[in-house]
């Protein structure tokens, strides 16, 4: 089967023939239908996020179950599924605390580039290939842990459902779980890519007002407004993102700011644009070596909450069907998120266009 392999950082993905083992007892073989092109994959390709290589990337996907291991009970061949890149174990400290987004075992899988139990199911002529986030869905087929497949209604188009594997759940959860935005709360969103647009539409669904969207690409204005932004700040025209938010929130600052880029300047700005005792949620994934700085006196005197959100602090087995239900009833827009689709052979073009910032979400269709 064909897959996109990253051999080393700062190289293009190679479309090559690879082999896939049969699934282990608690694993599932999924035939991929669609996979989203996410910034996290790009960070790995740039060497900003260190993972074991060579690997098959891709962590936002949906497909159809082909084969299941002997001990798998949750899904069966023919089921339509979305992949979750946090295959939480269900029994570690964090899972028991109701925070599967912080699951120790899932984190170890991410670091080791294998499946649970150090299993490696991907191979090419040169030897084994590492798994990526337990998903590796830039491939025609993949083997994933049974904790990483979420069955969904087969009526939902898989090329829409795929996005719920990362971008939608991350943005939706940041608003609904991490921030718990309520009606009339003011919200600012820095970055209007695949995740940012979902922060915007979840904020709208929560009743937020105003919703101030910001992006360095002025062309994102239309898309941001379509998803519910009430105001748009073109970050290419000023590097002071704070003043426009202060001006649009009666001089106070936003109740909630979401940073969805992962840059020093924008993380610092997100904290700065929040009102006293408001909350800044950092969703953007910065390289692990990056530091930011904040005014120390403001911590006690302004009592803002500065936090992050990883995979939207979601419980995928609950949130993915919940989000897809909202989509089916017309309350969440997945149709306009995908602005471009590509075949696997053109995956490097998809990443090129992602970095140009011209697309909402690009998707690989198999």
């Amino acid at each position, binding site marked *: 089967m064909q897959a996109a392999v990253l051999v080393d950082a700062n190289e293009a993905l190679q479309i090559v023939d690879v082999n896939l083992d049969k699934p282990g007892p608690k694993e599932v073989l999924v035939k991929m239908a669609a996979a989203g092109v996410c910034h996290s994959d790009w960070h790995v390709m740039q060497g900003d996020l260190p993972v074991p290589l060579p690997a098959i990337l891709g962590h936002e996907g949906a497909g159809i179950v082909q084969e299941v291991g002997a001990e798998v009970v949750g899904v069966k061949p023919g089921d339509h599924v979305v992949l979750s890149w946090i295959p939480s174990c269900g029994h570690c400290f964090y899972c028991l605390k109701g925070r599967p987004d912080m699951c120790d075992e899932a984190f170890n899988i991410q670091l080791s580039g294998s499946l649970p139990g150090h299993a490696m199911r991907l191979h090419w002529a040169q030897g084994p290939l590492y798994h990526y986030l337990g998903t590796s869905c830039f491939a025609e087929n993949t083997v994933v842990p049974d904790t990483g497949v979420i069955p969904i209604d087969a009526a939902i188009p898989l090329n829409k459902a795929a996005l719920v594997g990362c971008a939608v759940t991350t943005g939706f959860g940041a608003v609904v779980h991490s921030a718990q935005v309520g009606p009339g709360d003011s919200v600012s969103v820095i970055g209007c890519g695949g995740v940012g647009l979902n922060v915007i539409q979840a904020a709208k669904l929560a009743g937020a007002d105003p919703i101030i969207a910001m992006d360095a690409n002025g062309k994102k204005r239309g898309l941001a407004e379509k998803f519910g932004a009430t105001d748009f700040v073109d970050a290419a025209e000023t590097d*002071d993102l*704070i003043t426009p938010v202060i001006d649009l929130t009666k001089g106070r600052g936003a109740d909630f700011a979401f940073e969805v880029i992962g840059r020093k300047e924008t993380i610092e700005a997100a904290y700065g644009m929040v009102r006293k005792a408001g909350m800044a949620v950092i969703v953007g994934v910065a390289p692990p070596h990056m530091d930011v700085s904040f*005014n120390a006196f403001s911590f006690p005197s302004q009592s803002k909450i500065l936090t992050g959100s990883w995979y939207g602090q979601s419980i995928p087995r609950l949130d993915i069907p919940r989000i897809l239900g909202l989509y089916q009833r017309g309350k969440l827009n997945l149709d306009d998120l995908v602005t471009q689709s590509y075949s696997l052979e053109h995956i490097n073009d998809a990443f090129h266009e992602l970095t140009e910032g011209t697309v909402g979400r690009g998707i690989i269709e198999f």
Partner: protein
Amino acid sequence: MATYQSAEEFIEVLSEVADQVKNSPAAKSLQEASLVVAFVYRHPDFVVLMDGRSPTHDGSYMSMTFHQDLPEADVSFESSADVGHQFWSGHMDIPNALARGQVKAKGAITKALKLIPLLPPLYDVYNQVRQKRGLN
């Protein structure tokens, strides 16, 4: 739109302001405090140095000079030039701007902050200079 399209444009305004305020009470206090204050701006990038310590050639209380790199100063305020404009035009709540990180201060901040009450006449001069130049 950024307030100033080039460093030159901002520098011309500030030079004229400096000419008008170099003998003002605010400048006198700067001299009495023997303070050298730098404003480090981004977009456009340049540094404004207000020096109340070095003797001036015309006997005024202070000099204002412009630089590319940060010279020796007792205190520096770093911000975007847009935020710098807010400061000079009197539209900035300075403690809030520091808390929000819009302005990053380094050095003898307490000494410099003591001068804040003397600033409003400077704001007026700055706004008049801009108005005269048709910049408002």
